C-alpha cells in the first residue's frame, strides 16, 4: 500500500493526461462518456490533491516528498517535488477544475469539439507546473498549460474572442522564448537546471559570472511576471479573460497565479538569505511592481463598465497585492499572502462564473455607454447561442445571484466578515509588529495600497451590482440550471469555510511560508547527498 502512496505524487499529472487522451480516442460522438470521464478524473483529482495536502502537512519539518522518475539520482532525473506550497496549489487547481467543469456541463462543453479534453490537458499542465522540480520542465509544463489555455480561450469562434486570443498567443509565445533565453543563460553559468541544485550552486558562482546568472534569473522573472500580469506586461489579461467563455475564464483565473507561484518558489529558493552575494536579488522590483500594479488595477476597476473586464481588473489588484506581500520578504506576511491567494483565486473564479449567469438575464453590455463600447471595440457583439434552451428559471434565482454577487464583492474588496478581510489583515498585521522601531516607508505604502484598492473595488462592485440587480430595465428572471449555480455557491461556501476555519488554515499557510524561507529543507530533500560543485563555472 505504501508503494502505491509513493506514486501518488505523479497522479495529478497522469490522471488528466490519461483522461484527456481517452476522450480524444473516444471521439466527439460519445458525449456522455466524455462528460463522465471528465467528472471522474476531475473529482479524483480533488481527492488525490487533498490526500497529498495531508501528506505534505503531516510530515513536519522535512515536508518535501520527492518523486524521481525512473529512480535516477536527483541531479539527472526528472524530479517532481511535493511540498506544502505545491500541495496547496494542487488543491486549489482541483477545486477550480471541478467547479468549472460542472458549470460547463450545462452547455459550454458543446461549444466546440474538444472542450473537455483540452480542459483535462489544462489541468495536467497546471499540476505539472506546480509539481516539477527543475526549470526546464517548468518550461515544458508552462507550454502544455498555455497551449491548452489557447484552445480553451478560443472556444466558440467569435470575433472578439479570436482577436483577444491572437494577442494572448503572441504575448505568451514571446514570453516562452524569453523563458528559454533565461533558462539557457542560467544553465550556461551554473551547469544545472535542477532547482535544488541551483540553490546550492548560485552562492558559489564566481563573481565575474554572477551578473550573468542574475540577468538570466531576471529574464525568467519577467516571464513569470508576464504570467502574473504585473503592470507594464499585463495588459493582455482583462481582454483575454473577459472574452473567454465563463468556465474557461474560471480555470484561467488560476493561470495568473502560476506566475505568482513560480516567483514565490524560485525567488525564495534561489535568492533567499542563503544565496550569498545574490541574496534578495530583485526584491525591490517586486515591491515597486506590486505597488504600481495595485494602483493600475484600482484605476482599472473604477474605469471599467463591463463586468468581465471588472473581474480582470480584480486579478490585477490581487496579483499586485501578492507581489507586494512577497516582496516585503517577511515570513508571516508571506503566510498571509498565501491565505490571500487561496481566497482570491476562489473568489475570482466564482465571480467569472457568476458574471455569465448575471449577464445572461440582461442585454449584454447594457450598462456600457455606447461611446465606451465603441472605444473598446465591442460594437459587433454577438452573443453565444443565447436562444438555445437556456434552462429553467429557478425560483428566487435573482436573490441567489444577488447574494452570490455580494459575497464576491465582500471577498474581493476585503471587507469583513469574509475571508478577504482576514487575508488582508494577515498581510498587514505582521508588518506593524516592529517593536519600538519606527515603521519603514514600505509598510505605509502597503497599508495605503491595500486599503485604497479595497475601496476602489467596493465602489466599482457596488456600482456594477446596482446596475445589474436594481436598475435592470427589464424584469426578466435569469434562467439557469442547478449545475450552473451550484459551483458558484460551492466556491463561495469554501471561502466561507476558509473564514470559519481561519485558525487551522492560517497555521498551514504559516508553516508553508516558514518552509519556503528555509530552502535548506527543500534542497536536502531533493539532493540527499551534499553535491557541491567542484569549481565554480565548471560547466565550460
Amino acid at each position, binding site marked *: 500500500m505504501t508503494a502505491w502512496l509513493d506514486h501518488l505524487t505523479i497522479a495529478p499529472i497522469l490522471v488528466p493526461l490519461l483522461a484527456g487522451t481517452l476522450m480524444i480516442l473516444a471521439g466527439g460522438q460519445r458525449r456522455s462518456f466524455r462528460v463522465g470521464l471528465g467528472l471522474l478524473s476531475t473529482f479524483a483529482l480533488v481527492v488525490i490533491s487533498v490526500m497529498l495536502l495531508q501528506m505534505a502537512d503531516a510530515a513536519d519539518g522535512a515536508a518535501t516528498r520527492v518523486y524521481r522518475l525512473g529512480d535516477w539520482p536527483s541531479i539527472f532525473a526528472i524530479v517532481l517535488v511535493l511540498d506544502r506550497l505545491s500541495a496547496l496549489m494542487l488543491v486549489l487547481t482541483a477545486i477550480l477544475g471541478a467547479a468549472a467543469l460542472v458549470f460547463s456541463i450545462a452547455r459550454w462543453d458543446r461549444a466546440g469539439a474538444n472542450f473537455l479534453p483540452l480542459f483535462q490537458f489544462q489541468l495536467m499542465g497546471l499540476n505539472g507546473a506546480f509539481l516539477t522540480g527543475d526549470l526546464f520542465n517548468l518550461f515544458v509544463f508552462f507550454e502544455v498549460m498555455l497551449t491548452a489555455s489557447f484552445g480553451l480561450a478560443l472556444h466558440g469562434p467569435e*470575433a472578439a474572442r*479570436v482577436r483577444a*486570443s491572437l494577442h494572448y498567443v*503572441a504575448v505568451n509565445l514571446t514570453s516562452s522564448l524569453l523563458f528559454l533565453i533565461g533558462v*539557457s543563460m542560467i544553465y550556461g553559468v551554473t551547469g544545472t537546471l535542477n532547482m535544488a541544485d541551483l540553490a546550492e550552486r548560485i552562492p558559489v558562482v564566481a563573481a565575474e559570472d554572477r551578473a550573468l546568472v542574475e540577468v538570466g534569473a531576471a529574464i525568467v522573472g519577467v516571464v513569470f511576471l508576464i504570467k502574473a500580469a504585473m503592470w507594464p506586461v499585463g495588459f493582455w489579461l482583462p481582454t483575454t479573460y473577459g472574452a473567454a467563455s465563463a468556465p474557461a475564464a474560471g480555470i484561467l483565473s488560476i493561470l495568473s497565479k502560476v506566475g505568482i507561484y513560480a516567483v514565490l518558489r524560485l525567488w525564495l529558493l534561489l535568492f533567499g538569505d542563503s544565496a550569498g552575494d545574490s541574496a534578495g536579488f530583485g526584491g525591490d522590483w517586486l515591491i515597486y511592481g506590486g505597488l504600481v500594479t495595485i494602483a493600475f488595477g484600482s484605476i482599472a476597476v473604477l474605469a471599467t463598465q463591463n463586468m468581465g473586464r471588472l473581474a480582470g481588473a480584480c486579478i490585477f489588484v490581487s496579483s499586485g497585492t501578492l507581489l507586494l506581500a512577497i516582496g516585503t520578504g517577511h515570513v508571516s506576511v508571506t503566510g498571509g499572502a498565501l491565505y490571500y491567494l487561496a481566497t482570491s483565486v476562489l473568489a475570482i473564479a466564482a465571480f467569472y462564473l457568476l458574471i455569465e449567469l448575471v449577464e445572461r438575464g440582461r442585454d449584454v453590455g447594457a450598462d456600457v455607454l455606447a461611446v465606451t463600447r465603441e472605444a473598446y*471595440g465591442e460594437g459587433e457583439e454577438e452573443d453565444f447561442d443565447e436562444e438555445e434552451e437556456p434552462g429553467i428559471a429557478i425560483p428566487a434565482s435573482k436573490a441567489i445571484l444577488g447574494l452570490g454577487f455580494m459575497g464576491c464583492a465582500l471577498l474581493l474588496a476585503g471587507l469583513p466578515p469574509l475571508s478577504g478581510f482576514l487575508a488582508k489583515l494577515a498581510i498587514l498585521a505582521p508588518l506593524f509588529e516592529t517593536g519600538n522601531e519606527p515603521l519603514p516607508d514600505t509598510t505605509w505604502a502597503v497599508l495605503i495600497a491595500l486599503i485604497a484598492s479595497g475601496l476602489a473595488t467596493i465602489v466599482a462592485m457596488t456600482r456594477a451590482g446596482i446596475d445589474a440587480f436594481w436598475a435592470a430595465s427589464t424584469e426578466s428572471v435569469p434562467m439557469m440550471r442547478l449545475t450552473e449555480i451550484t459551483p458558484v455557491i460551492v466556491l463561495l461556501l469554501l471561502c466561507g469555510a476558509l473564514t470559519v476555519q481561519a485558525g487551522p488554515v492560517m497555521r498551514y499557510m504559516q508553516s508553508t511560508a516558514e518552509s519556503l524561507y528555509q530552502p535548506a529543507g527543500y534542497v536536502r530533500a531533493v539532493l540527499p547527498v551534499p553535491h557541491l560543485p567542484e569549481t565554480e563555472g565548471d*560547466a*565550460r
Partner: protein
Amino acid sequence: MEAVVSLAIGMLAGSGVWLILRPRTFQVIIGLSLLSHAVNIFIFSTGGLRIGVPPILEPGGVGDLARHADPLPQALVLTAIVISFATTALFLVVLLAARGLTGTDHVDGRERDQ
C-alpha cells in the same frame, strides 16, 4: 566561429523583434519563427562551440567537457524546437481564424484609421 554565431543570433533576433512589432499577423508569425531560431541557436551555444566533439561517452570513458560536447543543451534545443513548431502551427490556426472572422490581417482585427 563565435563571431559568426553571435552575429547570426543577433540578426535573427533583431529581425524577429522588428517583425513582431509590425501590424500584420503574417509578419508577427514570421517574426516569432525568426526569434525562435535565434533562441535555439543561443541555447545551443550555451553548451560551448566546438567542432567535432561527440556528446556521447564511449565505453569505459570518463565524461570530460574538454573532450565531449555538453549533451544537455542539445536535448533542450530539441525540445524547444518541437514545442515552438507546435505553437507556431497553433498560432497559424488562430491567424487564419482571425483573418476569416474579422476580414483583415491586422493584429487588432481592424484597420487603424477606419
